[in-house]
């Protein structure tokens, strides 16, 4: 199976280990076989081992090592934020974060909502069953 996501300049990656865990960063240069120069609008440009990065599908159009302003402009032009938040991976992460931050009362309300939804589904199912029976 051929690879689809390549390490290239402009590739957006998700940091999966370390201080910047969970951040989306842009690969801005490749230092050597193991490390990349990585940048994001809210962090200082620095090196990161490829093992700490998980590549995403998103790629932006930049030259090697752009300055911060150009980088931010390119990210806006490619609309990275909304592409990420609409992708199924991005949506999953958002849901995980929301679930982790739920308060005890919120969890209770979610439970009530689930029960309600299941009740409605079951009613519909019963109706359909009766029709086909």
């Amino acid at each position, binding site marked *: 199976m051929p690879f689809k996501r390549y390490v290239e300049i402009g590739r957006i990656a998700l940091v999966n280990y370390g201080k910047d865990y969970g951040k989306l960063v842009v690969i801005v240069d490749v230092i050597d076989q193991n490390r990349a120069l990585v940048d994001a609008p809210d962090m200082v440009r620095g090196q990161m081992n490829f093992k700490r990065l998980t590549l995403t599908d998103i790629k932006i159009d930049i030259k090697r090592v752009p300055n911060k302003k150009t980088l931010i402009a390119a990210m806006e032009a490619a609309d990275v934020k909304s592409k990420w938040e609409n992708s199924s991976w991005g949506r999953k992460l958002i849901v995980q974060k929301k679930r982790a931050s739920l308060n*005890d009362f919120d969890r209770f309300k979610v439970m009530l909502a689930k029960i309600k939804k299941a009740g409605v589904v079951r009613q519909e199912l019963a109706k359909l069953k009766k029709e086909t029976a």
Partner: protein
Amino acid sequence: MAPQQRKPHVCRNPDLIRGVGKYSRSKMYHKRGLWAIKAKNGGAFPKHEKKAAAAAPAEKPPKFYPADDVKKPLVNKRKARPTKLRASITPGTVLIILAGRFKGKRVVFLKQLTSGLLLVTGPFKINGVPLRRVNQSYVIATSTKVDISGVNVEKFDDKYFGKKVEKKKKKGEGEFFEAEKEEKNVLPQDKKDDQKSVDAALIKSIEAVPDLKSYLGARFSLKAGMKPHELVF
């Protein structure tokens, strides 16, 4: 003397390094104005006479000397004060009780008593927990708050919850054969009225929030997949 609105005094002799002041002794003498005080007093520093010490009553030699030196206990200056309340527990917080008869019940915190225990109520109509004292260590504080402004909890203190002292009955032979305790522990009517008055205002503010009533009526339990150290309460 009651200090009136004094501005905090800036240090006259700031530290250059710890242990070394900026000004020398002679400079400090000048800064403190001791020369002015002496000048005002005619060349010498003003002093007042010592108060005549009250004549101590003549001590008689003690009648008894202990055989060994009696050790004095070490001085203990600690003061008893109520347990420090966790910052997450404020009046109106919903607490989860973790032990005892009401374990798992979600309950409203009213105030901390002088003994350090927390005064808590169900409310009784909602989950069966009466006005009760609970130790802070056996409680999880959630971040849910109930509006408690309409409730007056001034009259409740530790004595209100103490055990009632019964008058001792004289032992008579006949009484041994009778039923030992004829009177059950009936809750006095005034305690029931206290509960009702506290809960009335509370229940109103609870019903203002959707689902809060059923939330307080339900018990808390850990389900599969819930990790207490990762849960946000």
